C-alpha cells in the first residue's frame, strides 16, 4: 500500500455531514456505520492506536455499500470509499475472507471456470432453482436451504446462452464509428437481453462492434471486498486485452464494471501495487463509457428516438445507480434519452439518486439492512405512480425487483438500454 492513499481521506474534519446522507446510517443510527466512523478506524489503525483483531471490525467495515453518497456530500472531498476498501484489506489479513467470497474470487478469476459453473447451474437449474415469473422482473429462488442466500431471495436468472457465446467477435457497421463492448458478468450470464438490446441499438446506428472473447471479469466485486491482489490480476488481463483493440470507446452496460475499470483500475496501480500499469490503466480508463453517455453525446440516437414510439404508452421513472451517477457522473444522459421517446411519460421519483441497498455482496452479508434500504426505494418508486422503473445497472435491477416484489408491486424493472431498444422497434416494454 502506498502511503499517499491516506491523503485521500485525511481531509475529513469530523463535521458529521456524512451522517445526514448515508443510507446505512439511516437504518443503523450509530457511528460505526457512517463515513466519519470508518475513516476514524483506518486513521487510528495507521497511527498504531488500534488493531482490527476484534471481530466487530468485520461488521463495522463490511457494512458499507460503497455508494459514495458521503464522498459526494463531503465538502472536503474525503474518499471514504478508499478508506473502507483499504481497511477491508487489513480486516481480511486478520480474519480471512468468508468462504463464499473466496469461491467467488476463484470462479470469477477464470472465464472457463465461470462459464462451467454457470453451465452446471443451468444443467441443474430445475433442481437447484425455481424460476419466479409474474414479478417486477423475472428471476430465480434457490430451492434448498443454504448458509449464503435465503430461499425467498429473488436472484438473477441464468441465461441458456451467454452473451459472449451468442455474438461473433466483430459485427460490421457502415458508420465510421467503432466501439468495443465489455459486457460484464451479470449481462453475460443473466440479463443477456440487455446485451441483445445493446447490440440491436448499435446495429441500428450502423456502428462497428468488437466483442473480445477473452475479456475476463472486471474484478470489481473482488476489489470491493478488499481482495486487491486478485483484482489486480484481472485488471492486468483486461488492460492487456483492450489496449490492443482499436475502438473509439469501450461500452460497458454495467456501471459497476465500468467503475471498476475506469475508476478503480488506476487506483489499484496508483495506491496498492507497483505503478508499471498505471499509465496503461489511465489510457484504458479514458475510453470506458456507459452506453447512455456514448449514445447521447457521440451519436444521433436522441434525434432518431424523437420519431419513435413504444407500442403502448408507459409512465416511467428512473433510478440512478450509484456507480453510474456518482462514480461515472452520468445523470442526465439516460433521462434525456428516455424523455425523447414520444409516448413515454417520464416521472422523476423522490430521492432518485439514493442507493437501492444492493451494494453487491452487501446484500448477501447484511440482507436485513439491505432490504430496509430497498424498501425506501421501492416506496419512492411506488409513490411516483410510474408503471415501469428504469435503471442502468443489473445489481439495482435485481434489488429493486425484489424490493418491489416484497411490497407486492407489479411495477416492472427495465434497463435503460432495453427501453431504448423497444422504442426503436416499436414494441411494448
Amino acid at each position: 500500500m502506498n502511503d499517499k492513499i491516506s491523503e485521500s481521506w485525511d481531509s475529513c474534519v469530523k463535521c458529521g455531514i456524512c451522517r445526514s446522507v448515508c443510507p446505512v446510517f439511516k437504518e443503523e443510527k450509530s457511528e460505526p456505520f457512517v463515513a466519519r466512523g470508518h475513516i476514524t478506524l483506518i486513521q487510528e489503525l495507521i497511527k498504531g492506536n488500534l488493531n482490527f483483531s476484534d471481530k466487530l471490525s468485520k461488521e463495522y467495515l463490511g457494512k458499507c455499500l460503497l455508494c459514495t453518497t458521503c464522498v459526494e456530500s463531503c465538502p472536503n472531498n474525503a474518499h471514504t470509499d478508499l478508506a473502507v476498501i483499504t481497511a477491508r484489506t487489513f480486516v481480511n489479513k486478520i480474519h480471512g475472507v468468508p468462504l463464499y467470497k473466496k469461491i467467488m474470487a476463484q470462479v470469477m478469476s477464470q472465464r472457463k471456470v465461470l462459464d462451467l459453473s454457470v453451465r452446471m447451474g443451468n444443467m441443474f437449474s430445475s433442481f437447484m432453482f425455481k424460476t419466479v415469473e409474474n414479478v417486477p422482473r423475472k428471476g430465480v429462488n434457490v430451492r434448498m436451504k443454504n448458509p449464503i442466500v435465503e430461499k425467498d431471495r429473488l436472484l438473477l436468472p441464468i441465461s441458456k446462452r451467454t452473451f459472449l457465446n451468442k455474438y461473433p467477435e466483430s459485427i460490421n457497421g457502415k458508420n465510421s464509428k467503432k466501439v468495443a463492448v465489455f459486457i460484464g458478468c451479470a449481462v453475460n450470464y443473466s440479463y443477456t437481453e440487455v446485451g441483445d438490446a445493446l447490440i440491436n441499438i448499435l446495429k441500428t446506428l450502423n456502428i462497428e462492434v468488437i466483442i473480445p472473447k477473452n475479456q475476463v471479469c472486471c474484478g470489481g466485486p473482488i476489489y470491493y471486498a478488499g481482495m486487491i491482489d486478485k483484482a489486480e490480476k484481472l485488471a492486468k488481463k483486461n488492460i492487456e486485452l483492450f489496449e490492443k483493440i482499436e475502438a473509439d470507446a469501450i461500452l460497458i452496460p454495467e456501471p459497476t464494471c465500468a467503475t471498476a475499470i475506469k475508476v478503480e483500475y488506476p487506483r489499484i496501480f496508483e495506491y496498492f501495487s507497483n505503478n508499471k500499469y498505471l499509465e496503461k490503466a489511465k489510457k484504458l480508463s479514458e475510453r470506458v463509457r456507459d452506453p447512455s453517455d456514448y449514445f447521447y453525446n457521440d451519436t444521433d440516437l436522441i434525434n432518431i428516438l424523437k420519431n419513435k414510439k413504444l407500442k403502448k404508452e408507459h409512465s416511467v421513472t428512473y433510478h440512478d445507480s450509484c456507480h453510474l451517477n456518482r462514480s461515472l457522473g452520468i445523470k442526465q444522459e439516460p433521462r434525456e434519452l428516455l424523455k425523447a421517446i414520444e409516448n413515454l411519460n417520464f416521472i422523476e421519483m423522490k430521492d432518485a439518486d439514493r442507493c437501492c441497498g444492493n451494494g453487491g455482496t452487501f446484500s448477501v452479508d447484511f440482507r436485513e439492512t439491505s432490504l430496509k434500504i430497498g424498501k425506501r426505494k421501492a416506496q419512492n418508486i411506488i409513490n411516483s405512480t410510474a408503471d415501469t422503473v428504469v435503471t442502468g445497472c443489473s445489481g439495482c435491477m435485481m434489488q429493486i425487483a425484489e424490493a418491489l416484489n416484497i411490497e407486492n408491486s407489479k411495477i416492472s424493472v427495465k434497463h435503460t438500454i432495453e427501453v431504448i431498444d423497444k422504442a426503436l422497434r416499436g414494441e411494448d416494454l
Partner: protein
Amino acid sequence: MYKNKVYKKIKSLLGKRCLNDKLSKVQYSYDATQKMYSPDIVALVENTNEVSEILKIANKYKVPIVPRGWGSGFSGGALNIEGGICLSLEKMDKIVEFDKDNLMVWVEAGLVNYDLQEFLKPYGLFFPPDPSSWKFSTIGGNIAENAGGPRAVKYGVTKNWVNGLEIVLADGTVLNVGSKNIKDVAGYNITDLIIGSEGTLAVVTKALLRVHPISDDKKTIQIVFNGIRAAAEMVNNILNSKIIPTSIEFVDKDAIKTVDDALNVGFPKDAEAILIIEIDGGIYEVEENSKKIKRLCEKDKSIIAFRVAKNEKEADEIWIARRSISPTLKRIADGKLNEDIVVPRSKLPDMIEKTQEIAKKHNLYIVSFGHAGDGNIHTNIMYHTDNNKEIEAAKKAMDEIFSFCLKLGGSITGEHGVGITKQDYLEKQVGSDNIKLFKNIKKAFDPKNILNPHKMRL
C-alpha cells in the same frame, strides 16, 4: 474502580446497545472539534427510562456521564474528557406529539433539526432555529448549546422556541419542566436554565417546541462589496430602515476565496465582503422590502454586485456558498481556532476591522464570516499544525480578539458553547462572582459532578 461493575449493570440493561470494545469507543471519542477522548462505555439508549436507569448507576458509582447527540459540536461538549459513559441519544429521534392547534410539538432529543423541518413542511410550519449544521445536529444538541442560526435576526435562537422539557436529573429523577402555556410564571424558569447548560445540569430527553407558520413569500438577496466596513455599515442601514430581515449573513474575502475554490461559485474577483440577506413575510411586504433594500444599495458606491434570487434554486446556490465555508476551511491550513464571538450589532465594523489588523500583525489567515444581523462572527484563525510558530501566533491572536470583543461588550461565544475550547476565557467575561454562582447551581443539580464534568470550568 467500579468500571467493570458499571459496565455489567448497563450491559444487562441495554444488551447489544452497550459497548466497551476499543473499536466502538474510538468512534464515540470525537466531535467536530476533532479532539479525541475515549469513553469507557458507550450506551446507545432508546428511551427515557433507560437514561434514568443509567444515571442512577452513574450517580451511585460516581462515573462521569456525557450526553451526546450527533457529535457535530464545535466546543467539545460531547467529549468524554475524563472517560466514563458516553450517553448517546441518537436513537431517540421520534416525534412524540404534534399539537397543531397550539402550534407545538413534543420531540425526542435525538431528532435531527432538519428532520423536524421536513415533518413540519407539509403543514406549512417550521422550527425557526436553523444552525448551519441543521442537517446533522440534534434538537437535544441545539438545546444544550442554545444554538442559533442565520434566522436569529428575526426569529431569535433555540431558547425562544422551547416551551418545556423532559429532563433526567443526575440521580435518575425524570421530570417535566415548562408547559404548553404561552404564559406561565409558576416557579423558577428551569427550562431556560437548562437551555445552554451544555449537559452539565441534566440530560434533556424530550423537548416541547413551538413552531411557526412559513411565510407566504421570501426573497434571498446577495450583495457584494469592495470594502469590508461598507458591508458592516449596510447591516445597520437596513435595520434602521424598519426592515427586519430573517437573516443577514456576512462572508469575508478569504472565506469567499475558499468557497470559490471548493465550489466554483464564480464570485467577483475584487469582492472584499458579501452580505446574504433573506427577507420573509406577506407577498406585498417582501416585494416592498426588497425594493427598499435595492434603493439603499443603489446609493452605496462600494457595492459591486447585487442579485436577488429568482427562484428557490438560485436561493439555494447563494446559501450553499455560505453553509459550505466552515467545512472547506481546511483548504487554507490544517489547523484552526474556530471562535464564534459576538458583539452588539452596532460594534460589528469595529470588530471586523480589528480582526483584520490582528491577522496582519501576526501574519496569519483569519477568516471571518457569520451572522452579521446579530453581531455573531465566526472567526477562524488558521494555522499549520506542524508549524509551532504559527500555533503560538494563533493563540496570541485569539487572546487579542477575545480581549477586544469583551471590550466592546461582546461575548466569547454566540452559539457554539463554552465546552472545553472556551472555558479558559469564561471567567474573564462573566467575572468570578458569576462563576461562583454557576458552581452553586451545578452543585444543586448534580452534587457528585457526574454530568459532563470539567466543561465550562465546572
